[in-house]
């Protein structure tokens, strides 16, 4: 699963640590999700999307082979 959290962060001018704090998760989580090393739970994906005020599908997308 790919995502555009990094882009959204850049738009909002936030660091990983700031985003992590706003959402209430660890910095490690944001870092791992951003690098697509960790697929977040539906709950966390929804929280991230709600924070950026966008639908989940515009932040997380399936890759071709998935």
């Amino acid at each position, binding site marked *: 699963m790919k995502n555009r959290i*990094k882009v959204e962060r850049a738009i909002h001018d936030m660091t*990983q640590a700031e985003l*992590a704090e706003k959402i*209430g*998760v*660890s*910095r*490690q*989580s944001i*870092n*791992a*999700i951003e690098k697509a090393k*960790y697929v*977040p*739970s539906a709950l*966390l994906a929804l929280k991230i999307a709600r924070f950026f005020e966008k639908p989940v599908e515009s932040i997380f997308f399936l890759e071709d082979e998935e």
Partner: protein
Amino acid sequence: MKTNYLLPHKYKTIGWILFLLGLISGIILFIVGYEVDILKVDVLSILNVEPLFGEDFGFFEIIENSIMDELIALAIIVGGLLVGFTKEKVEDEFIYKLRTDSLVWGLLCNCFVLIFAILFVYNFTFLHIMIFNMFTPLVFFIIRFNFLKFKAVSHEE
């Protein structure tokens, strides 16, 4: 993230102190050959078999024993449990996954080392391996968990 087996974060520091003190004094005890006479006290022994000196069985007797090794072993195990099973400052699903992954990794790693030792280490030396083996699952788990946590923040863009 709700977990039912993690202790509050405040116990982590005391865990590290116990764990490291235990490991250091354990290594010292290993170097001196487990032969220490300090802290000799009467203890309750529920079963005592001494095959080298006939077939003497002892049930529920009071014997004299140096409790140094017992204290060190308990410090490593209790300290290790506290380090591994207390909440992080920010506990979430990713940290939870790192913890369980590290546990699996630690157990597997320990089993492979043990298999290797069973195949290639014999006699009295194997007893030393067994002693180390009481603690290595926890030690491998803690090293792996902290390594992964550190790695996950170390190369931010």
